[in-house]
């Protein structure tokens, strides 16, 4: 059983929902991400999504675009991201880590090499924004062989027939994009999300995480009532941007946000 599945199973038995924070690896400096990951886990994060910086993050709003730019400014490469995960795994053997990003850095490394290195580093899942299942046959096989879950997105525009196909291709969890738009854009409508999740659950037993548009304790709590996981990104990355001049303060400041969301979700 994968670490991701174990994590969701355990939470389910406790009647709790997963808090899944996203940060871009290497943002704003090479030394921040590792202590930040540990701090988020200590504050109650269950799964970590770690962004692979990319020069052209087409599905992201300005907040995460700038995070990518800050990380790329000092040359954060996919190998560096994998290295961060390997260091994290030296002391944390249980918290699942999911890499999230765009295909080209993985394409250039080569799928097979990536699968091997990611597995060796202790990566549990990978979510490639611009790789839908139709194009992912070879990718899926290689990731599966390396025991890495392939996580797919579902969107408000995804029709029922396609929900079936996407869920069948994925493992670990599915990521429901709650709004039409880029990351960090509009606020989500919980009633609409609930309705869509009901349809999704008719077609899969995979846990459903919801992301895009979760910006505070209240929206985290509201989403946790309908979803299995609450994914939060831009609000954390915003805090990181604010503190880019005082990087040593970042882990504590970001963990304060996730701790507060955790509390709101567990009420």
């Amino acid at each position, binding site marked *: 059983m994968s670490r991701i599945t174990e994590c969701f199973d355990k939470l389910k038995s406790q009647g709790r929902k997963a808090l899944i924070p996203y940060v871009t690896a290497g943002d704003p400096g090479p030394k921040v991400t590792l202590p930040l990951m540990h701090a988020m886990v200590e504050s109650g994060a269950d799964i970590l999504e770690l962004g692979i910086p990319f020069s052209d993050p087409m599905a992201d709003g300005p907040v995460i675009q700038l995070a990518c730019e800050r990380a790329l400014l000092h040359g954060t490469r996919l190998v560096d991201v994998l290295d961060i995960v390997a260091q994290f795994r030296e002391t944390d053997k249980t918290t699942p880590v999911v890499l999230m990003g765009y295909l080209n850095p993985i394409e*250039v490394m080569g799928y097979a090499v990536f699968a091997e290195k990611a597995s060796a580093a202790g990566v549990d899942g990978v979510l490639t924004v611009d790789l839908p299942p139709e194009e992912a046959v070879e990718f899926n096989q290689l990731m599966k062989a390396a025991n890495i879950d392939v996580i797919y997105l579902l969107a408000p525009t995804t029709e029922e027939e396609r929900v079936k196909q996407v869920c069948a291709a994925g493992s670990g969890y599915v990521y429901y994009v709650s709004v039409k738009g880029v990351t960090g854009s509009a606020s989500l409508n919980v009633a609409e999300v609930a309705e869509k999740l009901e349809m999704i659950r008719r077609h899969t037993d995979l846990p459903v995480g919801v992301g895009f548009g979760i910006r505070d304790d209240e929206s985290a709590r509201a989403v946790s009532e309908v979803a299995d996981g609450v994914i939060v990104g831009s609000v954390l990355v915003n805090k990181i941007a604010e503190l880019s001049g005082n990087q040593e303060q970042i882990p504590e400041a970001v963990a304060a946000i996730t701790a507060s969301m955790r509390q709101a979700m567990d009420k």
Partner: protein
Amino acid sequence: MPTKEDLAIAKQMPDAGGHFGDFGGRYVSETLMAALQQLEQTYEKLWRDPQFQAEFDYDLAHYVGRPSPLYHAERLSAELGGAQIYLKREDLNHTGAHKVNNTIGQALLAKHTGKPRVIAETGAGQHGVATATVAARLGLECQVYMGIEDVRRQALNVYRMKLLGAEVIAVESGTRTLKDAMNEAMRDWVTNVDNTFYIIGTAAGPHPYPKLVRDFQAIIGREARQQCLAQTGKLPDALIACVGGGSNAIGLFHPFIEDADVRMIGVEAGGYGIETGQHAAPLSAGEPGVLHGNRTYLMSDDAGQIIGTHSVSAGLDYPGVGPEHSYLKDIGRAEYVAINDDEALDAFRRLTQVEGIMPALESSHAVAEAIKMAPTMDKDQILLVNLSGRGDKDIHTVAEIDGIVV
């Protein structure tokens, strides 16, 4: 060399998933999948509909002014002393470039899907102008994304778009050129997918765009083939066209794919020279990768980050290329070369002075390659060059290089 069977297969590309061999496809985030599937269905239905074809043909004839002439550049040919150079005069189209062939087609699709708003990305501004033009004509709301660096280089086209009622949005992210304009247009589309039709300007992007843009632009090659036969009694020895995203080139090439004796030469922007790394020539110096919804040759570094490009011509300043060109390169059907900024500027001046035709800086790359090739060929051989746009928009750029304030 590809066999006759290979070429017959090549002519039928892409496959149902939008793949041209290893290239193309649909690499987008999930939110756009439904819109792309809908576009594909709409397109496949309408493209086979005689009424839609009649509408498209009517607009090409009476609004664009087609067919565009095939002009024998006798004086230039005589000066070069070799092959006869024929220019396919896309510069004489309404709005001054080949771009309008495609925007007419896509605007008709937008009209049939009932979407009230169109968006576009633009580099040199020609596609933006062509989109704003058809939007004005059909009464559609229009927003055009343009890198702020290009806004500066192409001030005339920016103002033209505004006069046509479009809003030009200057893009300040990334390298501030065409690729970043395309990123922003994609972000807009993801957000406004219900009421917005994205008119992509080149034969790139996710399926079905590379196919439908090619189909709309293939009028160039169909006309050129007939005109060349009518005027000279034979097919050209080689076709030459500039390649940024590659829509004018694929439009010219596609109807000739099975004419194995006709060489097809795509000319990329060599910028300051391939050896300097400051260029926009992914087919000449790049590797396959994935960007903007398709797998194709790209300029990226060894960590997979897209790298900045340089070309004197904004319309070629793009790190990727349409996937069909990648495919035609790999099967050995088309050849791709690079022309540097200096050579393109020389060709710009020479064609202007010798033939009284001022080519766009993009098209000047194709002219420069013809100037190189013609002297090595016989006088009864034919080079057919796609003069994809006119150079009026580039006068400021050329004047600036000459140190003149216009």
